[in-house]
């Protein structure tokens, strides 16, 4: 007995000692801490999505009882959400699942696939031109090409519509192209899957550019040179050497673009639905906001998350399998630029025109629209919407002074900047820490769990995220309507961005760099602040930038959680709804300019930039 007891005590002590020595290593503390935090932060939303999809809401109970003769009460467990949405019904509802789910899903998949292809073709081509040829104006191209990502995706959709609308389509509003040249493009160009995919593709092309360009830039030129020596043709080198090496970057692009496009809502609404092109996210929104079949909206959410997870799984499986491909030597000695000779001029000019259209033109058009009293009539240019120090009249709602002297707008702008700053500081720092923990514990199950979980919030549609946290706030009442709530939600939602850049940056640092400081007795905070962070400064700061940008232009995530005047985007959506055209265009311009400015200044001061944050180098 006593022997057993003492042995028990001994093994207890042993366990305690094991734990103590395990947690004396900071990477272990961090990995466990973040594993727990992320489990809570992602498991709860996931749990509530699943629960909502399996219970009868108050309205659903009413509908199902009436339609199917069920005897559900509010909150009862039911498979009916899944059954009605996913399986063929009878009578009137025969095609419900097809029309509400399967067809939009098919459209979503098509749109996302095309968007991926377009993003990769455009982004990849430009990445190739910039990193591998002697094309001119590289610096200009690479900085301007990021714009479409910085701007909200729907701005491009709006510009698309304004340019290509013509008298043959819809109500016959004459767009810019027709009024300038008289050319009427066919309806399928203006509305439907084509513009949806194209706009999404262009919006995310910077992702492809950044990721593929990063790999190409870091790729040892020797690899290609070796092939050149073996007398392989350029095309063959591209096919057999270059493309396989950028494969992981391609996969990452596909993962990001595909899941983002699947969840995107605004673009399909703007240029899709007029041609009866509906996707899963628009259906999800309709059902969710309709307040009747909300459970089915959650089933759709699960579908979206599942697709994201499948892609994520494929991505990790693929990159894991071919890890050797991603090893980048870091020193690409002499890169031999392909001489494109006479084509140089042509390509440069073409690229300038293209980038002007997708990057500069939308900004100009915002500026113009915010300065014309009468839409489309450029003889009525005025600065009053910006500079008026008195109340601007002529709108259905009171808007106050011109934008630059409008207390409400400036307050909301400050609110957004404040939120974005705080979120980016939190998220960026967590990104560094998670990156550190994952890199140090690489290969362990816990590290896999943490990096997987950190990506998860990316897969949950913003709308659902907002709703989930509204419910959280109604239980933790001290959070309600506070900045803290917005910060928490924003921080969780944007964690994936920072984790990505943080992990990438940390993976590139050998453990020895830290151990060299450890051995001379530098404490962990000192090692982080004096050694690790400064070395990868630009990559880490990029991890702060991306959440800032995304947060500045986020609407659907926050709209349920705050009043319309708190953030610039919620105020914008209010003005937009009330057709306060000039002011909303002006606010748009303001957001874009601020983000560009922040990106530019950070870049100048620290060398960081958004492209580095996405995972480029």
């Amino acid at each position, binding site marked *: 007995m006593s022997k057993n007891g003492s042995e028990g005590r001994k093994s207890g*002590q*042993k366990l305690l*000692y094991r734990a103590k*020595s395990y947690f*004396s290593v900071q990477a272990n503390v961090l990995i466990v801490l973040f594993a727990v935090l992320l489990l809570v932060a992602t498991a709860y939303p996931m749990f509530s999505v699943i629960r909502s999809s399996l219970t009868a809401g108050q309205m659903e109970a009413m509908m199902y009882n009436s339609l199917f003769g069920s005897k559900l009460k509010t909150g009862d467990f039911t498979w009916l959400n899944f059954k009605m949405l996913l399986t063929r019904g009878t009578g009137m509802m025969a095609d419900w699942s097809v029309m509400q789910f399967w067809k939009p899903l098919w459209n979503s998949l098509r749109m996302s696939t095309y968007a991926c292809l377009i993003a990769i073709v455009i982004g990849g081509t430009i990445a190739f031109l910039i990193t591998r040829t002697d094309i001119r104006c590289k610096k200009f191209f690479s900085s301007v090409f990021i714009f479409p990502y910085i701007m909200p995706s729907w701005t491009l959709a709006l510009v698309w519509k304004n340019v290509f609308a013509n008298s043959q389509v819809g109500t016959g509003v004459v767009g810019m192209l027709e009024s300038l040249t008289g050319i009427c493009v066919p309806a399928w160009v203006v509305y439907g899957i084509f513009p949806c995919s194209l706009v999404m593709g262009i919006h995310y092309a910077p992702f492809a550019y950044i990721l593929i360009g990063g790999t190409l830039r870091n790729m040892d030129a020797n690899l290609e040179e070796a092939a050149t020596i073996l007398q392989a043709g350029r095309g063959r080198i591209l096919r057999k050497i270059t493309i396989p090496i950028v494969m992981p970057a391609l996969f990452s692009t596909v993962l990001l673009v595909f899941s983002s496009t699947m969840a995107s809502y605004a673009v399909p609404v703007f240029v899709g639905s007029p041609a009866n092109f509906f996707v899963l996210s628009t259906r999800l929104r309709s059902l969710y906001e309709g307040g009747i079949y909300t459970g089915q909206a959650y089933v759709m959410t699960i579908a979206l998350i599942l697709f994201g997870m499948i892609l994520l799984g494929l991505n990790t499986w693929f990159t894991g399998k071919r890890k050797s491909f991603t090893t980048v030597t870091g020193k690409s000695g002499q890169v031999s630029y392909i001489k494109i000779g006479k084509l140089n001029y042509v390509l440069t000019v073409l690229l300038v025109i293209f980038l002007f259209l997708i990057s500069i033109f939308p900004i100009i058009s915002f500026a113009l629209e915010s300065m014309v009293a009468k839409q489309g009539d450029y003889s009525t240019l005025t600065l009053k919407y910006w500079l008026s120090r008195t109340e601007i009249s002529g709108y259905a709602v009171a808007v106050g002074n011109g934008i630059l002297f409008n207390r409400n707008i400036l307050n909301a702008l400050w609110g957004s900047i404040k939120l974005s700053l705080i979120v980016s500081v939190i998220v960026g720092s967590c990104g560094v820490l998670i990156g550190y923990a994952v890199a140090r514990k690489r290969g362990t199950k816990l590290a896999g769990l943490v990096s997987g979980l950190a990506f998860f919030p990316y897969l949950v549609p913003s709308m659902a995220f907002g709703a989930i946290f509204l419910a959280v706030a109604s239980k933790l009442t001290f959070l309600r309507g506070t900045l803290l709530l917005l910060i928490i939600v924003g921080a969780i939602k944007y964690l994936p961005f920072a984790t990505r850049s943080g992990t990438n940056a940390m993976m590139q640092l*050998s453990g*020895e*760099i830290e*151990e*060299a*400081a*450890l*051995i*001379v*007795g*530098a404490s962990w905070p*000192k090692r982080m602040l*004096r*050694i690790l962070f*400064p*070395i990868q*400064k630009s990559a880490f700061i990029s991890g702060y930038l991306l959440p800032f940008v995304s947060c500045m232009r986020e609407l659907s995530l926050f709209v349920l959680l705050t009043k319309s005047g708190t953030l610039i985007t919620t105020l914008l959506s209010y003005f937009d709804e009330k057709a306060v055209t000039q002011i909303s265009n002006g606010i748009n311009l303001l957001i874009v300019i601020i983000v560009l400015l922040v990106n530019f200044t950070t870049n100048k001061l620290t060398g960081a930039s958004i492209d580095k944050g996405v995972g480029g180098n």
Partner: protein
Amino acid sequence: MPKITLTNVTKQWGNFIGVNDLNLEIEDGAFVTLLGSSGCGKTTTLRMIAGLETPTRGEIRFDDKIMFSDEKNINVPAAKREVGFLFQNYALWPHMTVTQNIAFGLETLKWKKPEITERVKEMLKTLRIEQFADRYPAELSGGQQQRVAIARTLAPKPKVLFMDEPLSNLDAKLRGEMRTELKRLHRDMGATFVYVTHDQLEAMTLSSKICLMNEGVLQQYAPPLTVYNRPSNLFVADFVGNPSMNIVDAKAQKIDAKSATIDVLGQRVTFRANEDFELPAGGVCLGIRPEFLYISDNGAFEGSAYSTLPAGMETTVKIKVGEEILSAVMFGAIDYETDAKLRYDITGDNILIFDRETTRCIASGSIAVG
């Protein structure tokens, strides 16, 4: 200056055993080399002693002070072991100048400003890198980076210095120079050096004792010449020496306590050992260093020149005997025509007999024909 003692140290990752039940005593002021091919556990051993890796079992002591013990639940962190570590890739901090790199550790140890400046100057001078003081690592060549790394490691005056293949990234000439300097440094500092390398020549030339490891198991721990002359087993015999020892199959029959008749390389010879020995049941093989094969026109053994590799000072001759290829080293530049017949003798008093089953070395001695 501490004495380092490892007792039953084992490192295990899942089912993979990195270091198996290692017992080692590193004397104060020694220059010990951990030698072995990659994956043999030498780096792991070094990192465990330094505190960068936690052993699964066992005990590590610096003098009487326990640094690690799983029994006693003690694990002194690396920073508190007061050791220096020189990394394979130098691990210089790219965002700091040479001076800052060297000073960082001293600042951490809370040295006074003037003392730091003094010490940094001293180190820069010792390692002859004064002119690079304000450069960044990226602006230095490999050899210069190496010197900076050494300066940084030595600056806090560690009592024990660990080095993980510090010369492997340098070219042959630089490596030679650095070896000379390391040996001097060791003498000047009087500190204990523990040095990891896969290069047996480095181990032979530098160390006061070699610890040869294979697959996590200690093979032999002895001064370099002992390891060379009296390797404890076939692995050690084969690993140390360049060109490697010739290992040839042999049939032996005991004559008396110290001698035996041996059939080897198509000849019957008499082996006279330096000590008493027993022949094992499973058969033996003979280990002959290349320098003990002496080529001469009236040699007792016969073979043909397979290939000749003159290196100026000496020449390595590959001799084909039946299916076996033997290495012989001769002084001066000699050239044999390929496949030319030649004769040779087995000379010297350090011919080794190994147990073919246990691979252990049984005896050393000399060989006489007839």
